């Protein structure tokens, strides 16, 4: 052991009621899920600023449960991403599987938990953005008058407008509910490594139902790992109101509008993030243009027949 460095106390509650009594005794303790983010911080060890009390959530049985029906899949917050993919490969939206796979191989996804990836304070993974496309919700457990209460919230409400985590103190996300509906167009794009190059990477998740020249029910989320994520109706409307195929000037104006929106929310977006965002938007528009043109030519062929 390093001299002068205190070894943190690790609390390992086996159920949620044990957790609530520990959190009452040690209100300032840190919550430890998979630990991937905490341990990847450069100053993690040795450090004199590490919290002296750590509550390890991995031993809480309730947080490892998984259940599903025709409409929803519900995961405990301590289910790791590898388990999410392996249990939900056939039922979960493809874009969600793609987002999880973008985290890395099984060796990495086996360590990252669903709750942990949603609740890091100063790092935003691409998962909340993608989940927001499917109106995911989460169960938050919080202390009020020395008692633990729980309530379901839409996932978007646990983040502020800029995608920063906005949970009450001593609150815990215990379950995540994902709606099982697919839109016909859904894609996930990521440029740069979220873990190694946060300042320069960006990811965009988009889904919707292309119908001839329209892009109905469009949902889009843009994530900057060092800043937060943007998912709003204004952003969705940019795509919903467009008529595809778009020519170069229309495409340029959409790119500009999205970059402007990003800059308004996060003024410190790096130049490379801007370029990468623009590149991905261009790719999406190109994709939707191809979709629209293919649909148009199929229609023409049908009418000539």
């Amino acid at each position, binding site marked *: 052991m390093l001299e002068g460095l205190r*070894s943190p106390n690790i609390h390992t509650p086996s159920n949620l009621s044990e957790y609530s009594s520990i959190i009452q005794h040690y209100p300032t303790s840190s919550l430890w899920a998979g*630990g991937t983010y905490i341990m*990847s911080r450069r100053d993690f060890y040795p450090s004199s600023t*590490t919290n002296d009390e750590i509550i390890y959530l991995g031993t809480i049985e309730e947080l490892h449960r998984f259940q599903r029906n025709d409409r929803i899949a519900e995961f405990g917050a301590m289910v790791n991403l590898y388990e999410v993919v392996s249990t939900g490969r056939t039922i979960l939206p493809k874009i969600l599987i793609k987002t999880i*796979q973008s985290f890395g*191989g099984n060796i990495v996804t086996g360590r990252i938990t669903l709750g942990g990836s949603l609740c890091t304070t100063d790092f935003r993974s691409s998962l909340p953005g993608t989940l927001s496309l499917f109106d995911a919700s989460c169960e938050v457990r919080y202390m009020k008058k020395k008692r633990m209460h729980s309530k379901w919230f839409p996932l978007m409400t646990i983040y502020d407008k800029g995608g920063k985590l906005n949970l009450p103190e001593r609150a815990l996300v215990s379950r995540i509910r994902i709606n099982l509906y697919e839109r016909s167009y859904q894609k996930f794009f990521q440029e740069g490594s979220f873990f190694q190059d946060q300042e320069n990477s960006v990811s965009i998740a988009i889904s919707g139902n292309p119908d001839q020249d329209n892009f109905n029910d469009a949902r889009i989320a843009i994530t900057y790992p060092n800043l937060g994520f943007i998912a709003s109706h204004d952003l969705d409307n940019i795509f919903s109101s467009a008529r595809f195929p778009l020519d170069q000037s229309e495409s340029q104006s959409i790119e500009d509008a999205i970059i402007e929106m990003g800059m308004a929310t996060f003024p410190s977006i790096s130049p490379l993030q801007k370029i990468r965002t623009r590149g991905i938007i261009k790719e999406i528009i190109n994709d939707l243009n191809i979709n629209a043109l293919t649909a148009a030519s199929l229609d023409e062929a049908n009418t000539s027949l």
Partner: protein
Amino acid sequence: MKIDCVIDGKALSLSLNSNKPLSLILAEDIQNASISSHCNGQMCGLCVVLMDGKAVLSCLIPAFEIRGKTIITFEGYAKTKNAKDIEKAYDLTHLRPCQSCYNARTLLIESLLSSNLTSREDVIREMESLKCHCLEAGDVIRIVQAASEIRRKRHARRS
């Protein structure tokens, strides 16, 4: 914090800081030479060990999580018959990882073989965890398939 665990077949009782990463424990407390880097959790992938038979990045495992667990590092793994299968596959395919990623890549291949994940996609996805590019994806797939065949034959002979 007192932590009991089994590392490379030896039952140990260590007095450690509860949040010390396993990669540092192996390098500093056990003097294990097979862990080549401590990247502070930046996921370079070079510090792979087997924890209860599953491959993990040791820089992401805190000391309190190894309590009661069985850890196998490359030093311990290299003496096993399973290691010989992969060694033979390297010879058979004339493909060999570079010195810096040799230990980690071999343990990753072992974890793929033991969990029977030998499809192209599984191999490619798993090898993405390693930031060393000394071998192409196709080469690793050939190694994994050769090693899988060698192991299958060995098991068939034994039974």
